[in-house]
Each structure stands twice: as structure tokens, then as C-alpha cells.
């Protein structure tokens, strides 16, 4: 089951996205490459993901419909930017977040998403420490999220776009595999 960057882009366009802002990692780079040559959705690379939330807020105030691209490590870096701009200003924005380390959570000794994390979880080499706190962090920040695992999940893009607009908030889709 693949996740096609071109199909993701077509869905974003169909939802009215006009800008993508962020830092593309390995999983998102096929999408970023398509954006470089697509005049209908402009890609604005940033130097650190916290910038993306403020920049996207400005884009929205200016009349655009931005989408944020980031890895979960970047999401963790973005805490105050997300809080003080998108959330404080009630800006509707869809975030496509690479779920680095998602597969490591399938290990037998991985903690359940709802179990509080303990120091041993973070130091265990078999677990990705960014993955460990991705879902709990989104929950703590009040950002509703879903999963983009394959092309079968593409309708979720429209669903989460609508959710963000309807409730003037951030909504996230966690990308669990590299786009092709």
C-alpha cells in the first residue's frame, strides 16, 4: 500500500490549499518536489518548524489557505509557535506531520499511547523517542489528529481540512510512511 505524493497534492488542491509551509523530510520530500513545479500551491521552506506555524498564521490572515509540512521532531520544536499563533489566533490549518519512528511503536515492549511515559521509555534504543511523545503531545495541545498511511486514507485530507475550517483550529494528519 503506497502513499502517492501526487494524489496528496491533488487532494490538497481540491480542498483549496494555496500554500505549503515547513520543512520537508524524507517522507515528505516527494510532495515538496512536486510543489516546486506547481504554480497553484506555493511551497515556502522555513529554517525551523516553529516558524511555519507563525508564517502560516500570517498567510491565513492575508487571505490564503496554508498547509504545514513537518516531521514530528519539528512539531515538538514548534510548541510555543503553535500555541501563540495558530491556537491563540484561531487559525484553521492542516498539518501533515511525518510520524518518524511509527514502526518502532509496534514493538512488544512499546508503551500504549495512553500510558504515561517514563525515563526508561526514552532511553530504550528500540524505541524512537520522538514517536513516543507524538500522539500524547498532540493530545495535550488539543490538536485533533488522524493517520495518513496509504492512498486509502486520502479522503481524510478533506475531512481534516473541513474540521480545521469549521472549528478554526489546527488539525493534523500523521504520515506514517514515505510518500512515493
Amino acid at each position, binding site marked *: 500500500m503506497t502513499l502517492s505524493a501526487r494524489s496528496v497534492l491533488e487532494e490538497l488542491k481540491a480542498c483549496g490549499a494555496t*500554500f505549503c*509551509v515547513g520543512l520537508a523530510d524524507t517522507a515528505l520530500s516527494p510532495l515538496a518536489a512536486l510543489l516546486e513545479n506547481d504554480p497553484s500551491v*506555493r511551497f*515556502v*521552506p*522555513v*529554517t*525551523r518548524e*516553529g*516558524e511555519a*506555524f*507563525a*508564517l*502560516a*498564521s*500570517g*498567510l*491565513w*490572515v*492575508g*487571505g*490564503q489557505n*496554508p498547509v504545514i509540512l513537518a516531521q514530528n521532531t519539528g512539531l515538538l520544536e514548534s510548541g*510555543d*509557535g503553535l*500555541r*501563540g*499563533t495558530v491556537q*491563540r*489566533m*484561531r*487559525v484553521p490549518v492542516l498539518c501533515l506531520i511525518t510520524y518518524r519512528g511509527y514502526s518502532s511503536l509496534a514493538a512488544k515492549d512499546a508503551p500504549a499511547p495512553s500510558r504515561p511515559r517514563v525515563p526508561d521509555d526514552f532511553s530504550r534504543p528500540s524505541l524512537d523517542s520522538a514517536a513516543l511523545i507524538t500522539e500524547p503531545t498532540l493530545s495535550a495541545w488539543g490538536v485533533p489528529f488522524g493517520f495518513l498511511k496509504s492512498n486509502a486514507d486520502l479522503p481524510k485530507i478533506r475531512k481534516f481540512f473541513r474540521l480545521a475550517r469549521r472549528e478554526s483550529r489546527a488539525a493534523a494528519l500523521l504520515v506514517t510512511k514515505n510518500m512515493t
Partner: protein
Amino acid sequence: MLTKAQLLKPLARHRGSAVVVTCMSVTRPWGRYSSSELDFASADSAMGHTADFALGIALAQPRRKVICLNGDGSMLMTLGTLATAVGARAANFVLFVIQNETYELTGNQPIPAAGRIDFAQLAWGAGFPRVHSFEDRGEYEKRLPDVLAEEGPVFVAVRVKRGSEGPISRSGKEFSRYLQVSIAESAHRLRKVLASSSPRRRGSRPGGLE
């Protein structure tokens, strides 16, 4: 070195139809010289993210000038935004850094490298095509109209005297109109204003870019 009044009064006269985004120690003073619906206070927001927020407005509204009055401490928090603005070719973006060398709102604690850091050099290094530094009132007033009319991104470092502005609230206790509503209401209002108005045509510089 300029006072805040010497910095802001001429800017209020020459800003035209530009959006002006303020933060930190000039937020309240700007409200003494302007009550435009195109003003936005990045107060009760995220410190360090004023320039990237203003850059977003500039990219969204390429035919309108967007002026950001950033603090030096705030700029240091997101120096990467200098590269982002250059990379995004934000021709209508004018980024001021107000150098008072301190975190004024929290009691004038010195910023790192206070007295030694050169913001203009940082902007040059990031690739800003237009960079200006001012510490003389007369020179600033004389050149400001031309600076605001330049194709950017434009960077302007201005040395100002430190003041004693305290923490900013968003309430009816603030005299500035743009501080009397929440930041969410301000953001949604400005979006509506920008959607319903277009910048003036050439000849009314510096606000428009047509």
C-alpha cells in the same frame, strides 16, 4: 540614537496603505501615532515569531507593503527568519529591528551580545538585498520614504533609547485601539479588512507595489 517617538512618528506619516505589525516595546507607543485598521499587535502571541507572522502576510498580499517592527531580542529568537524571507523573495516585506539592546518589557535585561551584535551584518549575510542602519534622527527621517519604497525584502536596523514599557495586556485598560480586543479577534478582523480592500495604485507609495 532615536527615541521611540522619533522612530514611530515619521513611520506613521509615511506608511501609506502598508500593514504594520508591531511587537514588544513599540507595541503600545505605536498606538499613540496610529489607529489604522491595518495595524496588528503581535502581543499575547509567541515571542520571537512576529517577523515570521508578518512575512506570512507579506507573501499572502504581494501587492501590499508589510512593515514589521521587530524587537532585537525577538529577532535573536528566530534569526532563521532572515533566511526564510530572502528565500521566499518577499519583495514587499520591510523588516525593522528596534535595537534597544534589552528585553525591555521584562525589566531591561540585556540581550546576548548587547552592544556588540550587528543586525545589519546578519541581514547582509542572510542575503537581504537592501539593508539600512540608522542611529541619527535626521538621517532616518530624510531617507525613510525612499527606504519604504524600495523593492525588498528590506532590512532596517534602528538604534533606539531604552524605555520602561511594562507588560502589555489586551483589554480595555490599554489606550491603543488594537490592544483592546483579543489577538484572535484582531487576526480575524485584519483578514476581513485585507479581503475587502486593495492597496493604492502606483503614485501613492510606499504602501502599494503595483
